[in-house]
């Protein structure tokens, strides 16, 4: 009950401060759920972008047939759709996504190319995540 009230309060603050209407978004009925949902969307966008780009790469650099490129284009289009579900401004969503992209590329290289991140990679990635978390999740007052 307490968390529901916190969630409701969060939504009303967001609605009044950001001039948005999140009540209608069932994914944002609580603060925790809203954060989990937005993180999920960022990760989904990263998978589509890296996956779509990889398919285009296979066509042009690895001489796979054009089907790969067409599929890649479709996946990149889907990548463009994902951020429209985010409850924020275009520029803020994209700036935040830039940081997510770096970390996911690092993870991708680790998982598929066996490129193990060194300490500076991990420190840098952590700093980037702190920075983009401030961009996206810092509570704003009096925003239009």
């Amino acid at each position, binding site marked *: 009950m307490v968390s529901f009230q916190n969630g409701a309060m969060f939504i009303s603050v967001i609605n009044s401060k950001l001039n948005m209407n999140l009540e209608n978004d069932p994914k944002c009925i609580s603060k925790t759920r809203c954060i989990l949902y937005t993180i999920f969307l960022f990760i989904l966008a990263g998978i589509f*972008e890296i996956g*779509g*780009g990889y*398919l*285009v*790469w296979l066509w*042009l*650099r690895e001489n796979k047939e054009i089907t790969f*490129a067409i599929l*890649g*284009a479709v996946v*990149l*289009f889907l*990548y*463009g*759709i994902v*951020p*429209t579900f985010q409850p924020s*401004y*275009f*520029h*803020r969503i*994209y*700036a935040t*996504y*830039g*940081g997510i*992209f*770096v970390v996911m*590329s*690092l993870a991708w290289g680790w998982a598929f190319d066996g490129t193990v991140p*060194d300490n*500076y*990679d991990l*420190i*840098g*990635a*952590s*700093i*980037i*995540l*702190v*920075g*983009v*978390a*401030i*961009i*996206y999740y*810092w509570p*704003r007052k009096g*925003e239009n």
Partner: protein
Amino acid sequence: MVDIAISMTLFFLAALFEICGGYLVWLWLRENKGLGVGLLGGVVLAIYGIIPTLQPAHFGRVYAAYGGIFIVSSLIWGFVVDKKNPDRYEIIGALIALVGVFVMFYIPR
């Protein structure tokens, strides 16, 4: 040196196409601008997918540099196209993220 110049130019070009394509899809779904605008965004995103294949060489941690360029470009896009000044927390957060990019990209190993 020429490679680095080509590489950086391609990064900015990629960020421009990626953000522009995403913005057109955004206009379609969030601003009710019609399917044609959305499909144009899809075409621009497909072109974006081609740009990284033109990168002259494998540069190791280039994605970190690209992420940094992307963060700054997004805020510039909001400022120029949407007329939204970056707020204090966007600027602070972006500067912190750029420190992280610097650590990944520039610290000699």
